[in-house]
């Protein structure tokens, strides 16, 4: 009778073990490859960070205001500048800039991977059949799980944080790019063909400009997910606002947790509205 209630040992398979040995095998054989990636990402990260840190806080607030004003309206500009000012006033300016630099690096890498892949998916239905379930899996997998291979491949620090963030935040860029390219009016593409365009010309002169607003929506979502993941990845050594949250949890310090938490919210709102503003700016009336 027990056999119906307890799953028999007989069927046991150790998928986890296989994954582990696969990662180990990767590290063992392709160490140089991951090392190169690590160096590249680290360089990119440090450059971005130093540029961000080089800007005086006043300049950053003015830039945020101008972006909000030009992309949405002057009220939004004032609000965004105000939110940034409050973050600074809470003494979290440097942490915010660190978070921002990791997010930026992760989003740039995610777009470099996601947009071309999205275009390929739009062109190739067989590839789409493979990619789609993979993306679903990537998005439903609890984000903490990505931290483990990230540590194994890249050690502790900001690089594995970027790695985990990229994996977690690329799916919307792929998905929305694919959707956008597929959604381009058939008649426009046909017109492009009828005038003797090459495939590249159709992509560059018709499909990408048409798809741009939707691709921007994808980048917007990618950025939001990157924001969320950057906070989590403070557990493996990413500096920034997430680290403050982590410390607040450890010390059960409500005030510190709230300040860091609300700063993340302010930062997220500002980035979200600004990237959406870019998307809307280029929306073509149908």
């Amino acid at each position, binding site marked *: 009778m027990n056999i119906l209630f307890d799953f028999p040992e007989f069927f046991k398979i150790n998928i986890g073990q296989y994954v582990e040995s696969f990662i180990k095998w990767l590290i063992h054989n392709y160490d140089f490859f991951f090392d190169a990636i690590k160096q590249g990402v680290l360089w990119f990260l440090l450059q971005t960070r130093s540029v961000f840190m080089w800007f005086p806080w006043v300049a950053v607030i003015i830039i945020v205001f101008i972006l909000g004003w030009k992309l949405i309206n002057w009220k939004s500009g004032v609000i965004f500048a105000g939110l940034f000012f409050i973050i600074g006033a809470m003494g979290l300016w440097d942490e915010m800039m660190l978070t921002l630099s990791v997010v930026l690096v992760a989003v740039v890498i995610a777009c470099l991977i996601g947009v071309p892949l999205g275009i390929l998916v739009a062109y190739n239905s067989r590839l789409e059949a493979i990619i789609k379930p993979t993306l679903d899996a990537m998005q439903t997998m609890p984000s903490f799980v990505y931290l483990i291979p990230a540590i194994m491949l890249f050690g502790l620090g900001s690089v594995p944080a970027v790695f985990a963030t990229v994996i977690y935040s690329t799916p919307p860029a792929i998905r929305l790019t694919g959707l956008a390219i597929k959604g381009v009016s058939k*008649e*426009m593409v046909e*017109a492009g063909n*009828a005038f*003797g365009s*090459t495939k590249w*010309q159709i992509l560059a*002169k018709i499909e990408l400009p*048409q798809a741009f607003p939707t691709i921007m929506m994808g980048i917007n979502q990618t950025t939001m997910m990157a924001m969320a993941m950057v906070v989590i990845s403070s557990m493996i050594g990413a500096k920034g606002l997430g680290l403050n949250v982590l410390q607040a949890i450890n010390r059960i310090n409500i005030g510190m947790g709230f300040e860091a938490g609300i700063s993340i919210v302010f930062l997220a709102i500002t980035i979200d509205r600004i990237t959406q503003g870019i998307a809307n700016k280029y929306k073509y009336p149908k």
Partner: protein
Amino acid sequence: MTEKIKIKVEKLTKVFGRRPKEMLKRLAKNQSKNHIFKETGHTVGVSSASFSVNEGEIFVIMGLSGSGKSTLIRCLNMLNKPTAGEIYVDGENIVKYNRQQLREFRQKKATMVFQGFGLFNHRTVIGNVEYGLEVRGMDKKERHNIAKETIDSVGLNGWEDKYITELSGGMQQRVGLARALANNPDILLMDEPFSALDPLIRRDMQLELLDIQDRLKKTIVFITHDVNEAFKLGDRVGVMKDAEIVQIGTPEDILNNPSNAYIEDFVRDIDRSKVLQAKHIMFKPGALATKKHGLKVAIKEMETNGISSVFVVDEKRRLQGIITIDDVIEGIKNNKSMLDILKHDYFTTDEETYVQELIPKAIETKYPIAVINEDNKLVGIIVRVSILSGLV
């Protein structure tokens, strides 16, 4: 009339589906389009169409929706790759073209105007018009100038930098037309270009097209489901039904001798008076009087032809006037000359006038209408009954 053949299509067949080639056998066995679709799920777009288009003519393909006309026109620039058959343009078989040759063909020889316009709403008017030149690799300044000229020629001067969505439907299709013309192609392929426009704008665009055709002498293949449009624009018209071309001819041919019941049905709702011209319904003048013959001869002429009035011409057949039997009898009694009783209150017209325009004249006058040419020579006579009977 020997005209140069620009496009020659031979036994063109296009089948959509997974194994189009296999459907050719079924078509050869004369299986119908519906039958093939039911059994195999393949759609026969065009079945064994053969026709030729002369240089400088407007060839209209007319048919109801689903008859395959859009499929056919897309074969002419290989947007649809034919399943079988050949298409010769200037003697070259374009079906055999490789990609590079095909691109060149589309860039230089044949451009297309679309039903839904197919304009790029991320570009301005001039950006759209210069697109064809841009993909050809022409430098910016040159293509800008050409695009500007073309935009002027379709009457959109001053709208160059507007975005497409700021334009009305009629103006948008002018942009579509300008884009097609900017490449200076020999052939214009027009897929129901005016169907999406409202009737008044459509009429303007039709006239504009005829005007452009007059100036530029392009070879035009024009698709429409509207009989009136087909007959108005077409030098020759091909009627399509169920993927086949069922009749080709001038509008008059088709109107007067519909080759089957389908076409008869199709042309039933056309207003004949808009298609038929004076030359199609006039008689060669059988009975005529000349000035030198005098009144007695005129009476004789009327008697033998059983008519009560006769046109008077001079020795070069130039029209002088009309005389009626009453006036002639009166004239003989009073010893008048022909000049004295000659009347001038009849109507004249030329050969090209549409019957529609003659209707009010036919209602008003009691004499036949004289058809004259530019030298005032009498070339035909239209009796009132042949105009007014056409109305029923």
